[in-house]
Each structure stands twice: as structure tokens, then as C-alpha cells.
């Protein structure tokens, strides 16, 4: 079967992958096309239309300052996705470098890196992020930095485990005997083969990072108003929960659907990229997952 058709077949068989890809694609498209989709500027205030209910001119209603909730939710996806993307990239990069070094060279380097990662993993992660941010101060750059500090250890452990399990394979020995240096072995043979569980896990972590950004912005530690972050919107909505529930429902569902999308994507990729499960795709998995 040609690769494209095979890919489509797998996509249709593994339902979480299908749904996850669709949701992630729609959210990404919405964030890229935000200026085209949103009817008005997310920061434009119209005090005469303050707290209008959804319907008519305002698809999802307006907030206390008369800003269009729909436009704000659409623009909010930009902040959440950009944040999650940067945190994932940077913590994956840090984790990959440290995890590979630890796993490949072993010995004292391994012990030191792993003991440090133990320390970071022993803190409740989101609480650690909150408290560090309370000290460093809010803002997008600080927030990304803090999340990388909190989450690199997770990836370092994952990569280290993979590297250790692969490094004793015969083809690595063969490469070494053929005269490939450590750098060549790591970049050409080890890393390409240890990324499949990392990809699935990374997709799951995107959801966690989005929750983290929303949570910290909700507490006033992350993105600062008037920027349309979903967390900022939820914090505003708290005061109007009983009079204007749409203020909470719109960003609430946006977060839920986005996180769900990335979780499904991670779940589906996990099944797809795990060779043992791969054989079962369509046989067992396709039948059990509605």
C-alpha cells in the first residue's frame, strides 16, 4: 500500500488519532487565521454593549468591558499554542541533551544528572511553577522559562531510558566497530530511534502545558490582562459567574477541547508508534475504541 493511503487507513482505524488530529488541526488553523476569523479586534471595547448575552451581533456574547468573547477566545488560542509550543520545544531540547549524555556516557555524569532530575521531579510540578513565577514575576518569557525549568526532567528521564535500552542493541555495536564516533552514534543511530515514545508523550504534555498556562494566568501569574489569554478570561469570568455564565463557558470549553485534542493525539500516537500495539491496530484497538 502506498504510504499516504496507509497513513489515511491508520488514521481512520485509530479513532483517538483521527479526532486528536482533527481537533489539533482546527485549533492551529484558528490561531493562525485569527485575524480573518474573529469579527472584531479582541481588545476593542464597546461599553454600550457591556455583558451582552450570546446571539445576534455577538456570537458568544461580550464581557464587562464590551469586548467580543468569540474574538478573544480565538485570539486566546494563539497565546496558549505559542506558549505550549515553546515550552515543549525548549524542555524537549534540554531534556534530550541531558538525557542522552546521561544515558550514553553513564557513570558519574549519569548519577549527577539523574539526582538533579529527581529533585525537580519530587516537587509537585504546577505548584513549583506557580511559586517560582511568584518570585520571578509574571509575563510570557518568564513563564516559558519557569515551565522549562520545571518540566525538563520529565523528558530527560524518558530519553535516558530510551537511550539505555537502545545503546546495547547490536546495530549500535556495529556502528561503533565501523568507526563511528560517539557524536555520530548519538545523532545518527540513537536519537532517531528513541523519539517515538517521546512524540506521543510530547503531544500529551502539550495539553498539560496549556492547562498550566491557563492556570497561572487565572491566578494572575501568567499572561497579563488585557491580553486575551483563556486563563485571564476565566479569571474575569469569576465575578460574573452567576449573571453572565457565557464568560466562563466559552474559554472553559476552549481549554477543554484543546486539551482533549492533544490528549487524544498523544493517546493515538502512543498506540501507533508502539510496535507491539501497532500489529493490533485494527484488530483489537479499532474494535474497542468507539
Amino acid at each position, binding site marked *: 500500500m502506498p504510504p499516504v493511503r496507509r497513513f489515511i487507513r491508520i488514521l481512520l482505524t485509530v479513532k483517538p488519532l483521527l479526532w486528536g488530529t482533527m481537533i489539533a488541526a482546527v485549533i492551529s488553523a484558528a490561531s493562525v487565521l485569527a485575524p480573518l476569523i474573529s469579527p472584531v479586534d479582541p481588545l476593542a471595547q464597546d461599553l454600550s454593549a457591556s455583558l451582552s448575552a450570546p446571539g445576534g451581533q455577538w456570537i458568544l456574547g461580550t464581557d464587562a468591558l464590551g469586548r467580543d468573547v468569540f474574538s478573544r477566545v480565538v485570539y486566546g488560542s494563539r497565546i496558549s499554542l505559542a506558549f505550549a509550543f515553546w515550552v515543549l520545544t525548549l524542555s524537549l531540547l534540554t531534556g534530550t541533551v541531558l538525557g542522552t549524555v546521561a544515558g550514553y556516557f553513564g557513570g558519574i555524569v549519569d548519577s549527577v544528572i539523574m539526582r538533579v532530575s529527581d529533585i525537580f521531579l519530587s516537587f*509537585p510540578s504546577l505548584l513549583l511553577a*506557580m511559586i517560582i513565577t511568584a518570585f520571578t514575576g509574571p509575563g510570557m518569557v518568564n513563564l516559558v522559562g519557569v515551565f522549562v525549568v520545571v518540566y525538563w526532567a520529565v523528558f530527560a528521564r524518558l530519553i535516558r531510558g530510551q537511550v539505555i535500552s537502545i545503546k546495547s542493541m547490536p546495530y549500535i555495536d556495529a556502528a561503533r566497530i565501523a568507526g563511528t564516533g560517539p557524536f555520530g552514534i548519538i545523532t545518527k543511530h540513537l536519537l532517531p530511534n528513541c523519539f517515538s515514545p517521546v512524540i506521543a508523550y510530547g503531544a500529551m504534555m502539550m495539553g498539560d502545558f496549556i492547562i498550566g498556562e491557563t492556570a497561572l494566568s487565572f491566578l494572575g501569574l501568567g499572561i497579563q490582562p488585557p491580553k486575551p489569554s483563556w486563563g485571564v478570561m476565566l479569571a474575569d*469570568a469569576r465575578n460574573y459567574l452567576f449573571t453572565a455564565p457565557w464568560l466562563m463557558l466559552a474559554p*472553559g470549553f476552549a481549554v477543554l477541547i484543546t486539551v482533549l485534542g492533544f490528549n487524544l493525539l498523544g*493517546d493515538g500516537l502512543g498506540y501507533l508508534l508502539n510496535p507491539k500495539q501497532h500489529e493490533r491496530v485494527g484488530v483489537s484497538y479499532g474494535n474497542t475504541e468507539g
Partner: protein
Amino acid sequence: MVRFIVKRLLALIPILLGISFVSSMLFYIVPGDIVTVMLGQHVDPLTYANVRKALGLDLPFWENFIRFIQGVFCGDLGYSYIQQRPVNQIILEAVPVSVKMGIMALLINIIVGIPAGILAAINDKRISGRVLNSSSIIIFSFPAFIAAMFMQLILGVKLGWFPVSGSEKGMLSYVLPGLALGLPLSAVNARLARASMLEVMTQEYIISAISRGLPYRRVIIKHGLRNALIPVLTNFGMFVGAFMSGFVLTETVFNLPGMGRLVFSAINARDFPVLRGILFISALFAVLTNLLVDLIYARLDPRIATVIVGENTDAAG
């Protein structure tokens, strides 16, 4: 078993030192001058010097670190200049609320999560199993504070079953916070229980029990469940961390005067010693719970203890 416990306890020492190190680093990462950030621009020079001295910032970092460890050993986590009280006292007052909420969340987590996972595994090929399994990933995607706000709106305001905020109504006030915190995590539990149950159900001793003619229900509960729950139990260590982070948001939403809301109010008041104390205490609590879970795990499955001691590698690794 004794060797295993000793080994685990010894592995705790570097972790505890590391936690103290990270905690005492906090005062040094504040951009600008920490005392000015805490007390504002117009603080009189004498107070400024006193607070700076009391925070230990006149000392080099290493002495400050050692002083923090000494303080921890004597049960002293510092002094809050905002509330004019020792940090221990402030934290101790908030603990009972969070403990009640944690128990509620844990109960909901167990009562909902494990049976849902078992049912999903038993009915794996039926529609009910599929529905359970698909809904678990949706529930799992609910961030606790968004779940909290949804519940406030639906169960608290529209239906009026539970109080929406505060802790005046006794255990009833803890139902919604417990649900908001416990329910999303119970989906994690359900997924784990399902996976582990499906695995156990293919083991030979289950097949042999069924072929011996034992009632199916009894095989599931007596032979299957007992072994399937071991991986679920080990994951409870993870929940402790998730609970600690979840407290901050859920208690803020429900206005419960526990540890979580203390974090929130300390953040707003720039009460740095309180934040440092809470970070240290929660990491300590998380580490000790994980240790306890490991010990119970080793007791339930004695192979674990022998493997780890026999391998002669660090137990924490």
C-alpha cells in the same frame, strides 16, 4: 525488606537536601531587590535593614542555605513580615481544610475511578465498555479549576444542591471541591485500572480459575482485582503532587481557607517566606508519600524489594 527500607531512606537524604537547596534559592531569583518588592518602595531604612537581615540576605548564599536546613530541623520555616507571624503557624492553620478536601477528593477518586476502570475492562468488547473508556479521556482533560467553575454553575447555582463557596456548611462544603479535584484524576485511575485489569485477565491463573468452574464474578474480584490494583496503588504517589497543585486553583475558586488559597493570597501579598515554606512542606509531603507507596508496593509484591536491593543500584533511579 529491612535492607530495602534502609536503602530507600538513605536515598531520601540527597533529595531532601536538593529540595532545601531549591527552596533557599527562591529568595535570590527575585528580579531587583527582594525587600523592596516585598515591602514597597517607601520602607524606612531601619525596617529595610532588619528584614534583610532576618531573611538572611546579608549572609553569603551557603550560610543562608545551612541556616534554612537548621531552621527546618528545629521546625522553623521563617517569619512572615506581612502577617507578623511565624510561617509554621500560618501553614498549620490552613492544613486541616486542605486535608479534608484531599480526603474527599481521594474518596471520590477511588469510589469512581477503580469501579469505572474494572467495568470498562470487563465490558471491553461491549458498548458500555467503549462509552466508559471514551468518556474517561474527556473527563481526564478537564483542568480541575475549570471543572470547579462548571460545577459551581451547574450543581451549585442552577440546582442549588451544594454550597458554592466557603467552608461553613461542614463536610457538605467539601463535596464540590472534592469532586472538582477528584473526578478528573479518577479518569486517570480508571484508565490505569482498565489497562491493568485487561492485562491480568489474560494471565494463566485467571484462565485456569475460570476453567476450574469458579463463578466469573468471584474470579474477577478475588483473583483479578487483587493483582490488577497494584499498579493503580503505585500511582497514588502521583496524585499527591497533582492534588497539591490542584489545591491552589480549587480552593481559590471555592474560597476555602486552606493551603492552596494561602498560596494565592501569599502570591498577591508578595509574602515570600510563606511561599517558600509551602513549597518546602509540599515537596516533603510528596516525597514521604511516595516513599510510603513504595513500601506498601514492596509489601504487596515482594519481588520489587528483592530486585531493587539485588540490583545494587540506587532505589530512586
